[in-house]
């Protein structure tokens, strides 16, 4: 009897996998559709741009989804981490510009300057995350309304302080020499930094997956997403895990902000809020708490945004909201969300 139920369970398990596979195939396949009205060369350019954009959104969304999945906290201050990361990176680049590491620099110096920017953003974002979690978010566990209000308030404060420290106006970001310009591969123009964005995004994804799947910490975090109480009774201080994940999420958002600022070559204080919308859409599409889901969602959003922006520019964000609405109607918890 026991074995019988077990095999039944296994079959069910197999069935679930085919379903997931179906989700993957459908969500990949649909992106060949624009080829019907976009010529292949442009399509290729748009696809690279979309992938790059998706990877960058993923950086922000992955933190957001983990924070939500584990802590059940909707962190609307996530956009503030993002914009702070962008401005910290901007300052570092300006500083490095003085010693000639940015404009007219060699490949090593260019890469070095970007890495330095990212590290600085990582540290600043992480610290901000820890402070925010320990000071404010901690007070709001269990009440979504409080979370929304308090993280909103925190977001307003952080962005206003940013305007005091830097300025409320747009700034131009100088892209390090080696990342300027583009390659042309078979008529397709590929901007160098887009490739860099895809590489960084892929590295972060790999890193997160490695930590989540292969380490004890990853097991604890995944277990916490599913059932906090059990994790606590097994002897882990879930609060400390919360702080850690919040810190990591904030750091990732800040890194995303830095990458985004170099990607767009300009920054402004409202960019955090704009990007938060993308990240929210991605998190909803992917399913709260699922890193792979938000990766899938981010790629979808990046691609859809670029294809639609090329065809009907004002509707680009609308298209993403449409995708979100349709996915929610079919799967109310998102592509990879818990049922």
């Amino acid at each position: 009897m026991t074995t019988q139920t077990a095999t039944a369970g296994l079959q069910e398990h197999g069935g679930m996998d085919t379903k997931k596979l179906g989700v993957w195939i459908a969500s990949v396949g649909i992106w060949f559709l624009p080829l019907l009205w976009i010529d292949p060369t442009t399509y290729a350019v748009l696809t690279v741009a979309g992938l790059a954009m998706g990877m960058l959104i993923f950086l922000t969304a992955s933190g957001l989804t983990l924070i939500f999945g584990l802590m059940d906290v909707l962190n609307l201050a996530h956009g503030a981490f993002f914009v702070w990361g962008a401005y910290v990176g901007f300052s570092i680049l300006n500083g490095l510009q003085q010693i000639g590491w940015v404009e007219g620099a060699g490949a090593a110096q260019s890469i070095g300057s970007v890495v330095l920017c990212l590290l600085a953003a990582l540290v600043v974002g992480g610290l901000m995350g820890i402070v925010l979690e320990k000071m404010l978010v901690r007070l709001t566990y269990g009440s979504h309304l409080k979370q929304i209000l308090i993280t909103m308030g925190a977001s307003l404060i952080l962005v206003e302080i940013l305007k005091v420290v830097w300025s409320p106006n747009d700034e131009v970001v100088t892209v390090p020499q080696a990342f300027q310009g583009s390659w042309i591969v078979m008529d397709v123009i590929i901007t160098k930094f887009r490739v860099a964005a895809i590489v960084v995004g892929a590295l972060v994804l790999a890193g997160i997956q490695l930590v989540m799947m292969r380490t004890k910490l990853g097991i604890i975090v995944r277990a916490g997403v599913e059932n906090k109480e059990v994790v606590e009774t097994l002897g882990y201080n879930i609060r400390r895990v919360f702080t850690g994940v919040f810190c990591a999420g904030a750091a990732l958002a800040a890194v995303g902000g830095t990458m985004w600022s170099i990607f767009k070559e300009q920054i402004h204080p409202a960019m955090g809020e704009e990007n938060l919308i993308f990240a929210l859409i991605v998190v909803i599409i992917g399913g709260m708490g699922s890193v792979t889901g938000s990766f899938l969602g981010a790629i979808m959003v990046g691609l859809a945004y670029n294809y639609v922006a090329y065809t009907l520019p004002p509707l680009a964000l609308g298209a993403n909201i449409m995708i979100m609405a349709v996915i929610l109607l079919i799967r109310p918890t998102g592509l990879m969300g818990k049922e």
Partner: protein
Amino acid sequence: MAEPILSLAKVHTYIEQHHILQGVDLSFMPGRATVLLGRNGAGKSTTLRTVMGLTPAASGEVILKGQAVQAMKPYEVAKQGVGFVPEDQAVLYTLSVEENFRLAMLSENEKTWSRMETIFKLFPDMKKFWRSKAGVLSGGQKQMLAIARAFVNDHDLLLIDEPSKGLAPIVVDHLIESINHIKNHTTVILVEQNFYMASHIGVDYFILDDGRTVHQGLMDDLVHDEGLKQKYLGIA
């Protein structure tokens, strides 16, 4: 007489505004499996949860191995050497069986892995489904995983909450056998509604009713005391 491994004195616990435990007094002797009995809503599960710090006591004392633990957080209680098996087969469905065990290991060393060998002997299914997601296991297998998971550490005390709930009789028999093996190594406190299971594991028993301790004694005596069973357990 030896010191009790765990004792509760005048413990009151509220869940929201409900007064669930209304002055529970209990003491558990090391090495003796004890069963908490009582009707639905008598406060048995809450007692275990209060010991673990999941529903903290509003007043009263919980002494674990001579140390007051009523103000401790669940993870601190767990680190004092208490294993907890929550009700409803609370294993982590999205994690593999292996990951469930690794999560439970407070330290992954040779000693814990050698305990795994014992566990595999007790619960061969755990080895068989080592790499499967815990969510695909049957109800009985999940319950065994939940118990085995708590056994993986060298705990002095194991709290088990209604392991038989929702399981087929044949599975219950297997569970009884395994818990009886485990109770040779650690002190087991069991909350159980299934009297058959309770009577086959417990040495001592307590009966709770309306959040109070109303009776205690030796299991062997209770089995033959029809009046008591009918009065408190609704078993005619």
